[in-house]
């Protein structure tokens, strides 16, 4: 039983850690002012997923966002923000998971200054006009993502 508890503790506490920063230029660069204006001007709900290629949980949730985009892209905009990463890492990550939506390169994690939060991954659910509806810190699973997306649609359709 003790071994089981140790195993379960390790499983539940698995999470990513901060990594060194590098810079590059392939992905469009994130600009806090432009991004804020964009969210405020948006007429559709937006999901913003903050990720990094070195972040293990981000790798595991990437296919979920690809699936969510396939299901909800007619009603919700999806944007990825790659933080504290290299352009090479970002390119490999995007190619590996065939992520179909727009991604921005945010080497200094400026997105956290715009929408708040710490760590990676983070997922923000934003209403049309830029109001932050919900923030999910850490890895998100399919049920939580599906519920949050439905909640976002319900909250913004009435």
């Amino acid at each position, binding site marked *: 039983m003790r071994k089981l508890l140790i195993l379960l503790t390790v499983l539940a506490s698995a999470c990513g850690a901060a990594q060194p920063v590098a810079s590059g230029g392939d992905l469009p660069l994130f600009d806090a002012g432009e991004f804020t204006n964009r969210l405020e001007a948006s007429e559709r709900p937006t999901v913003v997923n903050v990720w990094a290629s070195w972040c*293990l949980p981000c790798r*595991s949730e990437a296919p979920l966002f690809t*699936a969510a985009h396939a299901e909800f892209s007619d009603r919700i905009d999806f944007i990825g923000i790659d933080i504290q990463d290299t352009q090479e890492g970002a390119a490999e990550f995007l190619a590996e998971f065939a992520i179909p939506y727009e991604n921005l390169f945010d080497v200094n994690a400026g997105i956290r200054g715009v929408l708040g939060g710490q760590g990676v991954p983070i997922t923000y659910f934003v209403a049309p006009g830029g109001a932050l509806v919900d923030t999910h810190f850490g*890895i998100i*699973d399919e049920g*939580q993502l599906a*519920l949050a997306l439905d909640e976002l649609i319900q909250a913004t359709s009435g």
Partner: protein
Amino acid sequence: MEFTLLFAVLTAVATMGATSLLLGRSGRIAGIERPVDVLIGAAVIGMFAGRVAAMVIDGVNPFANPGQIILVRAGVDTRVASVTAVLALLWMTRSRLPQIIDAVAPIAAAGLGGWHAGCLWRGTCLGAVSDLPWAYGIEGSSVTRHPVELYAALGMAVVALVVSKLTERPWFASSVTVAGVALVRLVTEPIRPSLSGGPVLFYAMAAMVGLAGVFVARIRPAAPPGSLTG
């Protein structure tokens, strides 16, 4: 750090332990000590296989990314996990199969109920939108929803209660458990939040396998009295 998943798992383990004590099946059964530990071991093996399967399905190479195997939180393939857990249980109890399987069947159903009730720790109980009196919403939301995970927990508890009364024929209790658990998941799946619609076909097949087992067990001879708990 996220401990809510751990709390949900511990709720399942605690439910299994309590159920085994209540049913008097916590000790030696059919020559096997602590059958609940065997059950938990099978569940862990199933979870591992289900996680590896989920990685492969998502296009992540488990050999190139072994660190991701521990990210159970990122997804476990229910079908592979269930089948592997059952196979592991069969292997670990192969010499006394019907007695052990039937004896731990209600404990397994109760454990699954505990796992679903663990949504209260994780804040993941809610499903489709509903106006029913017991529906409730996410904090700060005006939308109320079915507490679908609590429905599943209640359903599993009913299955465990019913199965705990069944002792007369080999494979009967375990077959009823498989059918009952699968039917509970099948009924709740449409109101569960999902991007893919959920493994409905898998649950339908599992229900049919369970019902076929019930039929076969009914036409076989009855077990000697007390064989499930001695």
